[in-house]
Each structure stands twice: as C-alpha cells, then as structure tokens.
C-alpha cells in the first residue's frame, strides 16, 4: 500500500495554489484502505493516544507496518470532546514527567506534523481559594521546580492582571493566589487527531475506521491477532488504547482492569469578542474556563457520580459548574450556554493512567487517563511506543498495572480536586 508517495505539504502557498482551481486538487488527509492479513503492530483505538502511539512507533522506532483500528470515526471519543487544556503542573514525579514531555511535544507539533494544531501557550492558572489550597499549590510549585516544570505561585494582584474579568473578593471563597504555568495553554483537539492520522497514513500505516474489534486471538498466552467486523487480522503486538471502553477489550483478552467509567461533561457559551487570554481552573468551587479562538467560553467541571457509558450526563453537574464560574467570573451570567455534551472517562483508583504490559504476552494497554487525557496525548504516545517497541520506557515505568497490587500508587487526586 505504500506507493502513494509522500503527502503534499500544507502551507499558505499550497492554499493559494489550490484557490486558483477552486480547491479541486486537495488529496485525502488520510487513506481509507482495506485491512491487510497481518501487521507487525495493531493499535485498537484511533483517538489521540492511539494515533500518537502509532506515529511514534513509526517515527522513533521505524515500525510502520501498523494498523490503527477504530470502531467509529477517528478522534471521535474523548479526543473530540474535551476542553483542550494542556498543562503539566502535576505533583507527583511520574505524572510531571509524562505531562511535561507531552507539553513540550505540543510546542512543536504543528511543524512536526505539518498540520496546525493551534497549540497556544496562553498560560494556565489554578486558583487557590482556601488556606489548604494555598499550601497545596506551594507544594506543587516546589515539586515542579525540581521536576523541570516551570510554574510559580502568584499573588491575587497578579491573578487579576492575568485575567481581568475575575472577581477576586467573592464573599465566600476569596482568591488567595494561584499556581501559574505560563507555558501551559490550549490546542485544537480535533486537529491533533487529524494531524497524527495524516502523518501515520503518510508513513504507510492503515487507519481502519468503522472496524470494531470483537475478539482477541491468543496462542500459548501470546497475542496473535484480533477478530473485527472486517475480518480477522493478525499481529505480533497489540496495543489497546480505547479509554472508556478499555474494560470491554480487557475482558476479551480474559483479564480485568481497575477502571470505572463515568460521564464527564463540558459546555460552551455563545461566542463573544476576546475577554480572557488564559485558562483558569477553580478547584474549590469546581469549575474551569477558557475562551476558544472562536470566542466561546469553554467550560468544564466535575465528573458524574455514577458509572455509565451514555456519553451524556446529569444536569445538576452543569448547574454546579456554571454556578461556580458565575461566582468566579460574574460577567458570564449575561452569556448563554450554547451547547453541553459529555464523554466517558476511564478512572483509576489513584487518578493516574495505566500504560502497561498485560497478562497476555505482546498485548499492551494504555488507559485510565480519567479527566485529563488530552494534554497527555503526545507524551503518552511517545512512552507507549517505546514500551511497545523496547519492552520498557522511563515515562511509563511507574504506570504499570502491577502498581495496584503492590500499593505503589501515583496519586494525583491529592493535587487535582476537579476534573479537567
């Protein structure tokens, strides 16, 4: 399938050239091939994490006989449903390492993929509204200092300069300061999936959409292929990267995961002119907000309290979130909610992901990103590719499945009181 030649590069010149012929010459961003009989590696799940895994398998390890299987449309899970926040101000070392790797890869992703993912390091501010939070964020700032993650604890006055529409002195939870990561920001979520997909396809990898995995084939404890709605496909190595539905795939291979799946909701306002340059997260009151390039206020909050797969949630979480943000940014009271939606997030007990070998030889799993997966996509793909190619990676070392049996948690719920 290779012989398609390298993809045509995107640039302003290419757009101008195509304009002359009414854009009739653009080629497909990714091919739509039929499955081969076998691949060296099959990745299940063409979301951001799955596509990034495939991309770095090719780019860093030269493994390009790869298929990425997707039961729906690529990028259609949480990659296309999140609030696009990118930050790495995590508390625990293993988390800071993988999220900072991801953040630094985001910085150059547009150029690397030749696809503008609109990474915008506009800065992320986490508000401290109790004495306890002040101490917590000071601790995170100290940890980040030694992890090579640039953050600082800033004063209420600095908070006001960074985000003038904020109300510092709400009568219930006045702002006492904040943890500021200037190099955090936002990206265009769909473009991340599309950019990786285009690059993977260009390397000769096959992206198979509407191809649902129905079974996992093993011989002597080793994975040999998958059954799909498009037939059986063989492989040497199998990577499961399917977020909310990880438990379903694990069950096909005969093991269980310490995962709960819950709905996480988000919403946007109608678009208005620019008024907020940065991302603000208010964990005490449970909400966060940024303004998209389109002008919508992008809002999120806590996850729903019960397990389900519905991709919608209950309204009282929307209410809690909006109430928190009206209190923090009183002017949004005069805006209107345009649209709310939900995604299914896979939560582990310690709120950290699983990037791991599994009880089945040759089968690897990447899941459990909970409410914070988008920001991790390139770091996750980088580490997962190394794990699958070499058998281990320093980025994924602490995120193995065995940590639950050993009690060796990487607990980030310590620092993050709110879903994000």
């Amino acid at each position, binding site marked *: 399938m290779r012989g398609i030649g390298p993809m045509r590069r995107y640039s302003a010149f290419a*757009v101008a050239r195509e304009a002359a012929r009414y854009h009739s010459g653009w080629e497909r961003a990714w091919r739509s091939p039929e499955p081969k009989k076998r691949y060296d590696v099959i990745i299940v799940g063409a979301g951001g994490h799955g596509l990034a895994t495939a991309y770095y398998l090719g780019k860093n390890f030269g493994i390009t006989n790869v298929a990425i299987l997707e039961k729906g449309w690529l990028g259609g899970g949480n990659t296309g449903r999140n609030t696009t926040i990118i930050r790495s101000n995590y508390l625990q070392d293993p988390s800071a390492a993988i999220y900072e790797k991801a953040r630094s890869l985001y910085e150059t992703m547009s150029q690397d993929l030749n696809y503008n993912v609109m990474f915008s390091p506009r800065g992320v501010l986490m508000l401290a509204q109790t004495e306890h939070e002040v101490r917590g964020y000071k601790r995170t700032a100290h940890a980040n200092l030694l992890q090579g993650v640039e953050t600082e604890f800033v004063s209420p006055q600095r908070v006001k300069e960074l985000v003038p529409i904020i109300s510092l002195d709400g009568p219930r939870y006045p702002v006492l300061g904040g943890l500021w990561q200037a190099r955090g920001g936002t990206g265009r979520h769909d473009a991340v999936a599309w*950019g990786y997909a285009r690059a993977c396809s260009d390397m000769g990898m096959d992206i198979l959409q509407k191809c649902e995995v129905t079974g996992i084939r093993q011989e002597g404890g080793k994975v040999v292929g998958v059954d799909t709605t498009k037939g059986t496909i063989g492989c040497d190595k199998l990577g499961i990267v399917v977020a909310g539905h990880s438990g379903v795939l694990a069950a096909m291979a005969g093991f269980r995961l310490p995962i709960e799946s819950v709905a996480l909701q988000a919403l946007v306002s109608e678009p208005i002119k620019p008024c907020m340059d940065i991302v603000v997260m208010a964990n005490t009151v449970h909400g966060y907000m940024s303004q998209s390039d389109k002008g919508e206020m992008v809002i999120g909050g806590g996850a729903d309290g019960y397990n389900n797969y519905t991709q919608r949630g209950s309204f009282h979480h929307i209410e809690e979130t909006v109430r928190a943000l009206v209190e923090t940014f009183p002017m949004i009271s005069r805006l209107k909610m345009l649209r709310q939606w939900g995604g299914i997030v896979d939560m582990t007990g310690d709120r950290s992901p699983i990037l791991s070998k599994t009880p089945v030889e040759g089968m690897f799993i990447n899941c459990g990103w909970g409410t914070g997966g988008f920001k991790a996509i390139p770091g996750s793909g980088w580490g997962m590719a190394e794990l699958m190619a070499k058998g281990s990676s320093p980025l994924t070392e602490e995120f193995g499945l065995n940590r639950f049996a050993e009690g060796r948690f990487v607990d980030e719920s*310590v620092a993050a009181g709110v879903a994000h």
Partner: protein
Amino acid sequence: MSTRLKEGGRRIDRAKQVEFTFNGKRMSGFEGDTLAAALLANDQVMMGRSFKYHRPRGVVASGAEEPNALVNLGEGGKFEPNQRATTTEIFDGLTAASQNHWPSLDFDVGAINAKLSRFLPAGFYYKTFMFPRFAWKHLYEPIVRQSAGLGRVPKDRDADTYEHYYAFFDVVVIGGGVAGLMAAKSAGEAGAKVLLMEQTPHWGGRAPVDGGEVDGKPVEDFVAATVAALEAMGNVTLRTRMMGAGVYDHGYMLGYQRLRDHAPAAKGPRHRLWRIRAGRIVTATGAIERPLSFAGNDVPGVMLASAVRDYVVDYGVSPGDRVVVVTNNDDAYRTAIAVKAAGLSVPAILDARAGGGGALAEEAKAQGIRVLNGMGVAKVHGKKRVEGVAVCRQAGEGAVEEEIGCDVVAMSGGWSPVVHLWSHCGGKLVWNDKYAMFQPNPEASPTGADGEGFVLAAGVAAGAQTDTDFEGLGLYETLRTAVRAGTQAAAELGFKTRDVALPTVSEHDEVAMEPVWLMPQGAGAKLRMKAWLDYQNDVKVSDVQLAAREGYESVEHTKRYTTLGMATDQGKLSNINGLATLANALGEAIPQVGTTTFRPPYTPISMGAIAGEARAETFQPLRRTPMHDWHEENGAHWEPVGQWRRPYCYPRKGESHAAAVAREVMATRDSLGLLDASTLGKLVVKGPDAGKFLDMLYTNMMSTLKPGRCRYGLMCSENGFLIDDGVVARIDEDTFLCHTTTGGAERIHAHMEEWLQTEWWDWQVYVANVTEQYAQIAVVGPNARKVLEKLTDEDISAESLPFMAWKDVTLDGVNSRVYRISFSGELSYEIAVPASVGRAFWGRLLQAGEEYGVTPYGTEALHVMRAEKGFIMIGDETDGTVIPQDLGLNWAISKKKDDYLGKRAQARSFMDNPDRWQLVGLETVDGSALPDGAYAVAEGTNANGQRNVQGRVTSTYFSPTLGKGIAMGLVHKGPDRMGEVLDFPGTDGKTYKAKIVDPVFYDRDGEKQNV
C-alpha cells in the same frame, strides 16, 4: 425597501407605539413586534455580519432558528450579547446594536475576509499559520481571535436575578401550536396533571398564518377556544415565553421561562429555570423550513418563505416590494398568496419541480402570479440587499434564462421536524424519503427507568405518519397525531382515556415536494462557492464538498472541519442541507451518513438562569456555629473551611495576623485560651453492633473502650491510606460519639453509611450526624480547670475527670458534656452544650475567664500549638498517600483485630516497606521557618531527568513558644536519621538547610496536659 404595511398584523397593537434605538438610531415599532419585525418596518434589512467573512447579513427567519439577526441588547448590568432579534420582543427604551464589525455595520474592515474567501476555504487554518513557530501565539492567533467572536463582552455585574423552580407533572407538552394545545387537552381531559409550554408569547403556532379552517371557522378561533378550555381545567398549567430546553434521563427536563426579557423594568426574576420530572413528555415542537442552496442565498433580503409570510401576516411588515418565491414544495405558494394579498408584487414563483405544484399553485396563478416550473435561481444579484435574481433551469448548470428584479427572495427547501428534544436523551430518528426529512422513530423513544419510552412526538414534529390513509404535514394530520400522543401519554400513566372526536378540517391538498439540495443541480464550482449552508459560520456547499474530498467523511468530521452547524443556531437551518450535500459528495444515501448528535439546550439559555439564586453570599449554604456572630463582632479574620467559616485569628487594631496568632498561642500556653470547636464533626454511632462496627472503621480497638472514656482513633480507606482522625467517646454500652475533622463530618458519615448499607447491612447500627446539635468549646491552658470550677460544684478534679475521660457536668446551670482531651498539649477540656445555648455559654466562659486573661484563639493558633506538640493534622501530614505507619502511629493500630478497613491494603509490598518516607520534625539551621511544601533533594536525577528527592515539608510554622521555625515532614527513613541536615530548595531561589529532629517540640512527656 422594507416597511410597515398600512394594514394587518395579527400580533401588533397599532395603538401602542414603542420607541427603541438600533445602532444609536431612534426607531419606533408597535407593541407585539419582535425586534426583527420592527427593524424591517424601519427599512433595516441588514442586521449583522457573518462570523468568518464578515459578510452582510439580514434576517432570514422569524423564530428561534435565526442565525443572522443577532444583536447586542441593553446596557450596563442589563447588557446581553447575541440576542436573536427574531425572538426579542420590543419595549420602550430598548437599545440594540449590531455585532461583529468595525468600525460600523455598513462599513466593516473585516469584510476583507470576504474578498479573500477563495483563499480561506474550510479548514484553511489547519494548513497554514505554522511558520515561524512562535507566530501562531503572537501574530496569527490574536488576529483570528479579534476577528472571531460575535457579541460584545459584558462589563458590568448582572443587575438581574434568576430563580429555579422544581415541579412534577404527569405529562409535559412542549410547544403551544395547535398540536400542543390538542395534545394537552387530550391528556388533561383524561385527568393527567399537564404542563403546556410555548416558547413565544402566543398560542397557536404557525397554523393561523398558514390558513385552513377547523369546524368551519378560522384556525384562530379554534386556538382561542382550545386555550379557553385548557385554562378552565384545574389540572392543566399553561405557560408562554417558556421553552423546553433539554430532556434528560428518566423523564427529567428543563423549562426555560423568560419572565422579564420583554419588560425589564418590572420587578422579579428575569428568568426562571423549571426543573421538571415528567411522567411523559410530548414534543409538539413543529418544524423548521429549510433554505435552498443557490449562489447568493446569503444576501440580505433572501429569507425563508415562511418568515416572509410571518412578517406580512403577523406583524404587518413588508420585507420588500417585490418578492420572488423559489420553492420545491407547495407550502411556499402560501407566501406568494399572502404577499400578493398585502398589496405587494410577486414577479414570479420559481418552482424547481418540473411538474409544478397543486391546488395552491392554481390559486396563485388565479391571482395572476407568474409561475415558472422546473426553474430555480442561478444567482442572486446585490451585495447588501437583494437587487434581483438570475433564473435558470433547475436541471441545468446555471445558464441564465431570465433576469428578474426584486428585493426579496422567499425560499423554501421543504420542512424539517424539530426533533431536538426527542433526540436529547437518545430518541432515534428515521429518514422519510418522501418528505426528505428525519423524523422520530416511535419504536425507539428515549427510555425511562422502567425501560418504557417516555417521549412522544405530536403534530408536524412527529413527521409524516403512515398508519392511516391520511398522510402529510397538514392541519388534520397535526390534530390527529396530537390527540393520539396526548391520549397515549395519559393512558401509559394509567389514566382512563376515551376517544376524542377530531374536529372537521378544511385545507388544501398538497403535491409532494421534491428534494433540491443544490440549485441548479449541475451548479459549477464558482456557484457552489457562493451557495451558503451555514450563514453565521460561513460554510458553503463547496466547503462540505472539500471536506468529503479530503477524507473528513464522517458527518462529525465534516461538521468539525467546516464548522457546519456549530454556530449559535446549532445548525437548525443548515444541518439537513449540509448532510445531504455530504451524502451526495460521498455517493451515499442520507440516512447512511446520519445526523450529528442533538445536544441540549434547544436554543441557548442564560448562565444566570442555570446558576439561579446561588451567587455571592448565597453561592453555597453558609454554615455558622452558634458563636459565629460573636466572632464577627470581635474582628475575626475568617477562613473558609468547607461551607463553614472559622476564625483564623482575632487581630486587634493595627495587629498583623502573625502577631495575633503569636499572642493567642502565648496567652493559651501561659494561662487560658478558648476555641470554638463546634465545626468538628460529631457522629453518634449506636446499636448492639456499634463496637464491632467501629472496630472495622478504626485501626484502633474501639469495642473495648469503657463508657466514660475517650480514645484517639484513626480511620483508613480501603486502600490503607489515612482519611480521618478524631476522639471517640463511649457514651454507654451501645453508644459511641465519634469526633471527625471539620471537613470530614459529611464525608465520614457517608463513608459509614456506605459500609453499613452495602456490606454490613445486617449489623444493628445506626449513625446520626449531630454536628450542628452541639456548640463545642475548647477551654485550654493551665487555668482551664480553675475556670470550670467557678461554674460548678461538681468534682472535675484530675482524679474524677482524668485525661482521656468525659463526664456530664452542669456548668453554670447548663447541661454540658465535658471531654478532657487536648489538641494543644495543654490542660484542656472540650465542652459540648446544646447549640441553642452555645452563644450564651461562650459569653459565660469569657466572663469567668476574665481574671485569667482569657483569649479566644483561631485556627492558626490551633495549628501552631498542635505542630509544637507533634500532633498530625489530616490534610497536612496526610494527603491521601500516607498510611498511619508513616506517621509513627503504629501504637494506634490494634494488633489484636482480625481486620479493619485498610488492613489488607497495608500489607501490600510497597506499603509494608521500610523505605517509605516517615514523619520527623525539621528545624532550620538558622531558626527561620521552612517554606510550605518544600522538598528535600537527594543526589542526582532520575531516568526522566528530574531531581531526586528524599522528603518533604508537611507543616511549617513559626513557633512563638520556642521562638523559632518548626516544621514536620516526611523523610526517607527519617526516624533513623536524627541530626542529619537536608537541603530544601525554595521557589524563591534559596536553599534552606534543616536538621532532622524529633517531631514533638513541646512538652515531650505530656506533663502539661496530664495535670
């Protein structure tokens, strides 16, 4: 030009003139006008600019589906951006301004984008703006942001109020057109409790405009009679200006009532959000007309045929003098007839169907209107206003057959049922090929908790039915399906229903529509680049085709790549046309392509309404202790702790917080301090199995505690981590009182209930949270006993009431429970009295303590004193990753018990490991205080390049007692490394050196607390 007609206008009261301004210009309208109608009456056809290309935009619709006519409305604290002019009722003094242009609506610099539109197709920004790397953030993105956005940013705090209203109804009917009225009547007559809501101020919907007769009378009479009948029914509630905003699981739904938008000067909340549980929901939400995709269909003056009719009939407004109608169905002929009847000119009706229309067409022809069958629009002339159309054959490629001058084009591409509310909670749709529309699949209604469908569609919103000989979207079918839905809803809920006689209806027979997804069908690239699908977001036929060509084949990909349907109208006009365009580009059938997901709300609802009353002081419930007011009056600096407020300290005039804390600590250690400890959680655990239960909850053995005694206990999660601590007192054989941390009361109560209800449901134990039943006051310091002795004759000596005992004592006539426990290391009593006498009792203690210089102290002094004494604080020394063994609390873990929550987890290899970080004291070499949260570094870096660490500060204070900084921390093998000095790099760039010491800094042997 557009203007007010001499006569007509069902909804306006010509006797009542209303003054308003648009872009600063004074205009007038009539009561009953929408802003859009009033602007048209003032010849203001252009009302805004589009999002991407800043193209001139005129009003295209007459209702909630309007994508173009959005305005900045009002001023100051009543300002609101992005208000649809079509749903805004005018009132005296209304101020509106158009959006998304600079410097003016007429002349907009941003319109340069339109000139460049050829270079700015769908998704161009994914292919450009990549070099140089930093330019996206600093150059391109700011320009994109400034150019995007629509309305102005609200500046002032919201001057309005909002409220929530909770309600239950058997049947909620959404939509007050003839279908909704009839459905509500059918359900109401069966005895069901019914709510009927209508988003506009008017009952009857479109039917009175569309004509026809019911029982031999105009539809308007039928509407009035039905409303009167409903109003007379005690079990039916009617609300106008209330929209069904969203349908959620299990019959939950939102109603969005706009109480004061039309009368902002009136008192009362602006919006009311109804949170409704409904047995059944009937969606009688009607249908929305579709535009046609021809070149120039976005020029101001191109409008939906139904909207043109509405403005003429409902508001007595002429959108223009010469109206060309272009259609693929019979309904648009009604517009031509209505326009003609109003005395305006209809130069031609272009019917894309080769065979033309039916009875309505004949009527139009009979009135002298020229009808051209098989024809369409090749191109609209004009930039800011329609000047004419070039006519072509629909079957061709756009060769112009004729030019017709006009200032309005009334277009109709058929109708789409409003299926949003049906779909919000998972209702499925089917494609009706004959009418080219998606309609609800009654076999796949959203299902409730019992697995039964709970949404029924009625009228046009149900689509065209196939269950009888009748068919179509006419008046009779509307009433028939409405009666069916209303009756069925009531019957499914167990109400006795009877056959409802349908009225007789006279209406025109209609000839079938023919789908037209592109006009003309062979339009070339040049025309397709001018044929708009999404007016607000500037998505054209060519953009969707480009997305398909580039492989964005899923309808969701196309939507996201082109932004089709993502504007403030959420695709109400554009979605079906876009889907069809995509399907054609892919060579697939429309139902195979499918729809995007319908998400709430139906139209945007205010954040203010969602937040409701919860703001400022009432943002969350504020919990006050009985002594709250005293603290307030005595200058407490408050600290929010959960929903409580606790005094952090009581600074005197001119005193810093640090100085106040030091004074409070010293006064307590030297003589006497008082702490309001009422916020501490108090859970009564009672029953024959209470001891057994607490043995499982706590690491300690609680069942052996003697009545009259107290024990400090630790609670762990199932994962072994320490989650709470506190003193447990045994009241009697069956009763324990468990103190929790302030933040832990509700959490631990829930934790206990969870275990009792899910695992040990057969144990005989009750838990009650009595936190707020008691005022609890800590009386602390060397003079504590002397003060209490002043208030009682009972024996409270060290022998009678030793450390870690409790006793019921009458203090100054108040029944009190006195716990002799200490969190400060001093002689200390915590006294619980009924909350109702707490404030008085606090005053009595202050009075009695006066001779000892009694000093109330706050949370910070509490923290300092417990740290001096080496007591851990949940949330400081613990963070969800710490087990009791890390904190030197092995003594509090019973070795005699088979089990407790967390025991098994603590046996795991990483937990039961001597390499864990453990609690120590830390003292800086120079006596300063360590920074909060600092880490102790070790040699080298890890595999990820991060500096290795070997410990961290968990609490740090300046100790006024010792006159130096003290800290607690967790350090790798800490207790074995006493005296070692560690480096703690600070975020201030300094490195702090601190020595590992014993964590108990004050009164190691407990001589002070045990006296």
